[in-house]
Structures are given as C-alpha cells and as structure tokens.
C-alpha cells in the first residue's frame, strides 16, 4: 500500500494546501476543531476533534441573501458560498458517516440546499482510520469500521510510523497523485493498526423497530429528569442539521438574512405562531431528540442518525448518554 512517514505529515499538508483551502483538525486556544491549515498551526490527530467537521459544510452562521425594502417594494441578492475547492483532512469513520447522513438530508428527496451542496461538491474528503478508541467512542456499535470508511474520497490507514493512503474516487486519486508527484509516497507493507476493544459498547440492533411502539413508554418520564435542555449535544453532534432563519438590519431599509443552527432542545424551537408548543416541557424535547436519532431518521433514510462519535457523551453537562438510552430501550418491556 502507498504510504508516507508520519514525520513528513507537515509536507503532505503543505502540498495539499496548495490545491485549495485545507481544513485540518487542530488545537487553537484549547479548542480542538477543524481550522484552515497554516504552517504554524498545531495539528492534532491523536483524538477526534471536540467540535465536529459539520461546521465546514453547514456553518453555525451563514449569510444567505442581502435584501432591501422601500415601503412595499424590495428586492434581494443571493450570497452563495465561494466555490473554491477545499480538502477536508483527517475525517474519521464516524464523521464520514455523519457527512453521508447530512447528504441525505440536504441533497436528496427533491430538496437541494444550494449552500450545503456548493460547499460539499467542492470538497475532497481525506478520511483517517483510527488506531485507538477514544474514551467516549462507540462507532463499532453503530455498524461502522473505525479503520476505514468507503464514503471518503481518499482513506488514510494508521500503519504505526507510516500513514497508508488509498484513493477511492477520482478526487481521491488526484490527492494521491499529487503526493506521489511531490515524492512523498513510498511502498509499505506494514500492518494496519486496529483499535482494541471499545470502552463503550452497545447493541443497537433492532432499536429503531422497537421504538415504533414506545412513544408513550414510561422510560421517557424518567429520562428527562436530569437534562438541563441546553443545546450542547445538538451543536456538537455531526449529524444534527436543524437550522433557523434570522436577519440583521444594516439600516432601516436594507439588511441580510442569516441561516443559523437551531436546537430541538430550545423552548422556542417547536413554538407555533399562535403560541401553542407541541413540545412544551423537557420530556417531549428529550424524547424527540432520541426518537429522531434512533427511529425517525432510520425510518426515512434507512440508517441510524447516530454514528457513535461520542461527542455528546463527552460534553453533556449531566452525562445523559445515548448508549445508556439504547440499552434502556433494549431492556424496556413493551406490552402488545
């Protein structure tokens, strides 16, 4: 398998950066998220990023169009994201799966989100296989292979001192070829390191089907008791895709419309125009989150919306863990 020594990582990143904006997982001011590559940036590949790469294709705040209004007539002018190509480096299997989930939502079933589509098409995703399971990871329990994911354009394998690389798509091939041209690649027959067993494991088999009869189950009465209804889990989760439209006025005539993240955990999320809220208290909101992840999404798109990245488990202020929910659903007695 073609590979390059880990020691040469910086050069690999430099060559990739010359092709277009390169996003790498880096640690800046103690925040571990995907940043545009700079020579002095502290790249960090030991663990998965604290904040997911979803913000590259689906940013938390995005201007969608400028508008002007004079009395009753007004017009608007769309602001599409720039089309320059970008390379997303170091995406792990859980995040790659999450991107596929996002693709289902934003690119399929007759609804194409231009903003997401523009960014997504211009991107080349270089996935990275994991050699060590993180404290909160459980992607294997969600049917994913930590070592590789077929959805990526190119796949890196952890070979100990080397990173093996395989191009999968035409864009991926270009990446491999660019590295080869730069003389960075050499042949290596080293073993691909595979993470030993995961700390967190759960059997997610058949959970979606079982949940279909559990909307009124007493499990939901207890689950919400410790939740504080903040948006941490939804904003860190790579597959959460809800957004709201807001606006900012430059002056009394013109302004800009903004698409920004929203969370089903917020009170105002399900508030109807007339003031009625079908999910008034925490119980409904917590139930909605897990039902969507483990039942509604699979019913609609045929795969769990949870990829086992463990970010919500890591940062939930009250440790309300989706693995624990899956276990409780498995053990729940459902009559009839």
């Amino acid at each position: 398998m073609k590979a390059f020594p880990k020691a040469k990582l910086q050069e690999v990143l430099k060559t990739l950066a010359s092709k277009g904006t390169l996003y790498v997982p880096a640690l800046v001011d103690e925040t571990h998220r995907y940043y545009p590559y700079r020579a002095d940036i502290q790249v960090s590949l030991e663990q998965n990023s604290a904040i997911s790469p979803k913000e590259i294709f689906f940013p938390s705040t995005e201007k969608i169009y400028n508008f002007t209004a004079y009395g009753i007539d007004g017009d608007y002018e769309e602001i599409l994201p720039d089309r320059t190509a970008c390379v997303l480096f170091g995406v792990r299997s859980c995040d790659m799966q999450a991107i596929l989930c996002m693709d289902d939502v934003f690119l399929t079933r007759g609804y194409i989100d231009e903003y997401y589509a523009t960014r997504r098409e211009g991107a080349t995703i270089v996935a990275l296989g994991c050699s060590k399971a993180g404290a909160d990871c459980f992607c294997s329990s969600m049917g994913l292979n930590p070592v590789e994911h077929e959805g990526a354009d190119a796949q890196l394998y952890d070979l100990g001192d080397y990173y093996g690389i395989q191009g999968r798509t035409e864009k991926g091939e270009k990446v491999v070829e660019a590295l080869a041209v730069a003389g960075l690649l050499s042949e290596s027959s080293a073993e691909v390191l595979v993470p030993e067993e995961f700390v967190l494991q759960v059997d997610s088999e058949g959970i979606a089907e079982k949940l279909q009869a559990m909307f009124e189950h007493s499990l939901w009465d207890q689950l919400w008791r410790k939740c504080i209804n903040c948006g941490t889990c939804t904003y860190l989760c790579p597959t959460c895709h809800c957004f709201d439209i807001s606006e900012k006025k430059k002056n009394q005539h013109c302004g800009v419309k903004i698409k920004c993240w929203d969370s089903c955990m917020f009170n105002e999320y399900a508030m109807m125009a007339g003031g009625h809220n079908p999910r008034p208290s925490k119980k409904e909101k917590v139930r909605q989150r897990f039902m969507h992840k483990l039942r509604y999404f699979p019913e609609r798109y045929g795969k769990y919306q949870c990829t086992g990245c463990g970010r919500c488990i890591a940062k939930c202020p009250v440790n309300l863990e989706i693995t624990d929910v899956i276990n409780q659903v498995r053990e729940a007695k459902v009559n009839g």
Partner: protein
Amino acid sequence: MKRIGVFVCHCGTNIANTVHCDQVAEVAKDFPGVVYSCDYKYMCAEPGQQLIQDAVREHNLDGYVVAACSPRMHEPTFRKCAERAGLNPYMIEQVNIREQCSWVHADKEKGTEKSIDLLRMAVAKARKNEPLSSSTIPVTKRALVIGAGIAGIQTAIDIADNGFQVTLLDREHSIGGRMAQVDKTFPTLDCSACILTPKMVEAAQHPNIEMVTYAEVTAVDGFVGNFDVTIRKKARYVDFDKCTGCGACQEKCPKKVSSEFEMGLGPRKAIYVPFPQAVPNKPVIDAEHCRYLLDGKCGVCKKICPTEAVDYEQKDEVIVERYGSIVVATGFDQFDISKYEEYGAGRYPDVITGLHLERLMNASGPTAGKIKRPSDGKVPEKIVFIKCVGSRDEAKGRPYCSKACCMYVAKHATLIKEKMPQSKSYIFYMDVRTGGKSYEEFYKRTQEQYDGQYIRGRVSKIFQVGDKLIVRGEDSLIGRPVEIEADLVVLAAGMEPRADAVALARTLGISYDQHGWYTEAHPKLQPIETHTAGIYLAGVCQGPKDIPESVAQASAAAVKATGLLSKGELTSEAMIAECNEAVCAGCGLCISVCPYKAIEKKKVSERVHGQMKERVVAVVNPGLCQGCGACTVNCPSSAMNINGFTNEQILAEVDALCQR
C-alpha cells in the same frame, strides 16, 4: 405598518438659520413608515397646528413626529393638537433640533446632518408608539391628620372648612401638643393658651372633624386615594358619653404621679386631665399607676363618680379606616439635656430647660406663675441662659440650628424682668438669630428695656457651691473668662425628632434624613409633599421651625390634601410600567428597586399540563407608578416595560442613531 407624518419647524429663524429644514423634511420622506413630510415656519403656532391636523385627516396618519424645540417645552402642546386631530396623544413624538442642534452648532451642514439623524431616531421610536391612556383611581374623600399640635389642628380645620371629613388623631389624650405647654409666645407675648384653646375648641366642635385622641397609627396599607390605616385606640377606662368632666374623681384619687405635661415639676393623679384647657376635657386613667388596675385595690373614682362613667373593663380598640390623603404633623421632642454632663444637667435640679421655665411661668402651672427654684422654691435673683444646647453641635450629633431658641430665650429674659424687676438675666450665645417679622425689634427691646445681658461665648462648666450654681464661661468679645454665681440656669434645649419618628416613617413608607426629620419631596419647591403620593408634611416633624411657619405649612398641607380629595378621582400617569405576566417569574427583583412601592405580587392561575396551577407575578399599581423605569433594568427577563419608553423603542432609537 404605521402611517407617520413628519413636520419640521423653522421656529422663525431659530432653527432655519443653521439647519436646512427643507432638506431635512425631504430626506424624511424616505424613512420607513413616513407617508407625509413637510416643513413650516411656526409649527407650535395656530396655523402650524392647523396644518398638522389637516395633514392627519388628509393622509389618515396613525401618528406624527415634530422636529422643533425641546419636548420639555411643547410636547403637551403637540399632544393636545393630536387629540384635537382625533389621535391618541401618545402616538406622537417630538425631537429637539433647536436647543440641542440648531442653537449649539453653527455649521449648517453638520447641523442638518445631525437633525436628520435625530429625526430618523424619532421616527424609529414613533413607529413603535402605542395608544396609551391614563387610568383613573377612585379617591376616598376623607383625610387623616396624624398629630394634633398647632400644625395638626390648623390643617384639620382648613380641610374641614373646605367641606371634607377629616380625622384629627393624637397619641396624647388631649390635643394641643407642645404649644399647650408654652406660657407666652413671641414676639407678641400673647398667652399661648389664649390663641391656642379657641382653635382647639373650634376643632372639637367642627362638624367635619372627628377627633381621635389617646390613639396611635399602627399600620398604613393601600396607596394614594385609598390608604387603609389601622388605628389602635388605647383604653381610657372612662366612658366619655357618661362623664360630665366634673373633676370629682381627680380630687379623690389617692395616687400622685409626676406630670409629664408639667415636665415633672408638678403632680397629677392616676386619673387625670393633663391641663385645665384640655380638649377633650375628660379624665383618663393611667393604667401604669392606677392602684385598682395594677393590684385590684382602691376603686375610689368609680365609687364617687356621679354618672358611673368609670369602667375598668375597657380594652384597647383597633379600627381600620380608609382615607384619601394623610398629613403628618407629629411635632418634636425636646433635646435630652442630660447628655451635657458638663452643665450638670439632670444632676442639679436648678439646671432646667426652656419648657420647664414655661411651666414655672404659666399661671396654671405647678407654681401658679411664680418662678421658684425647683430645688428649694426660692425666687431666683440671677438667672443664666445658655443657648445652642443640643443644636449646632456636631459632637452631640445635632449639627442643625433649632431656629426658635434665640427668640424664646429673649422672651424668657423679657418676661422674667417684667415679673421680677430686681432679677438679672445673663444670656450666653454664639449668635442671635432673629429671622422673623419684628423679631429683631423684640430682641433689641430685651437688651435695652429689659436689661438682658448678652455674653458672646460658650459655657465650659457649671458646678454647685452651696445653693449657688457657678457658671464658668468666657466672653469672647472681651477675651476674658467669665464666672457668674447663678440661682437658676436655663438651657435653651434644641428640637429633636420624636423618638418613634423613624418607626412611623417606616409605617407610612415616607423617607427621613439622618436625624429622623421627615424628607420633603424637594427642599425648595415641594416642602409639603413627600415622595409618597398622597402623604404630606406640616410643622416641625419636617424640620425645626417656629409657630408661624408651622401654621403656614399646616394650611399649605390642607390645600394639598384637599386638592387631591376634591377631584374625587385620580388620573394616573400614562407612561408607566407594565408587567408581561406570561414572562414574569415572580422573583420580586423589581419590587426591591421601586421608589414608590408601586409593585405588588398577585396570584394568577393558568393551565399547565391540563391542571390549573397558581403562581405569583408582579403587578404595577397605576396610581403609584411614576414611570421611572428602575424596575425594567432590574428585571432580567425584561417582563417589565415602560409604556412610551419601551425596550423595543429605545433599541430602535439606538439602531437609528448608529446607522451609517
């Protein structure tokens, strides 16, 4: 979207000189919501207002903005103009492009630019104006006067003469207050009782005055127009309907007690009338000293009372009455001279205060008008007066001047000379303050015709040698120490707030200064009102003053009180706070900052998950709220908002001003 009109005023040349009014009006046409914009020479004048009213009808405007002088000046004018045009007066805004723009910026371009910014701000605010109306609160046409000294009596009489019911309440069992203890008054030397008792009788017989004596206010709830006052009537143990005031019980009662009215210089009985001219002139049994009430013995008064008016079973009675306004006239206490050990006050019986001397000189006093030394009853030859005792003295915590002492010391010196020609009065003073009508002449007469010897200097020590009091001081004019062997020393004790003045202030909810004098709404322009609507002050409780000023304040307080009652109802401010009960969490942070105690808590019930649940929210009392807005800032969830200055309006103004 509201239809807003813009009217830019030239104010003759005051604005037009340094602001292109036509350009301002022109630019305003593009502001959102503006459907009509023009400028004119004199907006506030009749033709200007007519122009506005026509424009309102013609363009069916919802509200308008006038860019002219200061709203502090013509906002009422333009509000009335709006009303005449059929608009709600609070739908208009006035922005100041004269005092704060054209008059202070000579550069015409910059002045125009600023006027446009200010106008944009005002239009942004006007678009968020809502029709407001002031609500009306019914007023109970009844007043309460607390304290029945000369100030309280005069207030009650004036209110009653205006045709309103008034309750005159006093803690003592007779009305008359301090002035009843005084013998003569300066500068006319009228006998105090002669000018006071007719007023007391008039008050007693006035059909509109209900006298409640021997009673105290224990609680005041409610607010202006509707004060619910809890009054505790102390038990008198004498049935006033049966008692004819014959005085038989007083003679026979065996128990002698030192009379507070006589400042401890004379006795009274356990069942007593404090002074002959007392109103009501019927006795009261002093529960702390009456042998029967204490240990069941005696009962003489009940036996000999011809009309069986004595009733030992009487209990205190607590009543709650509703009043529209309250006047506080609780007077003062005399400074406790025992705090001056250096003068031997409290140790030497012959070191007395002005009030003691008043009782000694009074014909109905303990010595029937003859001045005798409390120690041995001898007639004093040399009398020393010391002024500013407990006044103008930071060390004793009394930095203020008590205003009336200079005059009553001069009066004492004059009267003593008149009564005892061979006596000699020495008066130690720092300054002599005679700030009243014919006061200075009175003081001149004391020195010239009544041989009052004024010594400018402080007295350092007084000590007793034999039966003489050695007064050691200094005469700063000649720079030599002075020593006088005096037979009697009279200290001009200053005025102090009542011992329980602060407690009453807290009950009423009015503020007081660091000494305990009640705080008026404004020291110069509102000396009668307090910050609590409907509560007024009269007399010395608001600060040291003499009788003419107290009477003047009393009549002023009466006008204020009746002014409130005559309207029958009170129109509240329109631009006041309002609580959004859906958002209010009932935390009470607003209540802690409201200067007018205008916010109360109330229970609301609402459906939560199918059940009716009760919770507490804040509610604003329109009668009390003055719209200051302190509550809106202390309320984190901005449930509290001020109509006319809402959060949304001020944000719109900030946005409009910051536009580039």
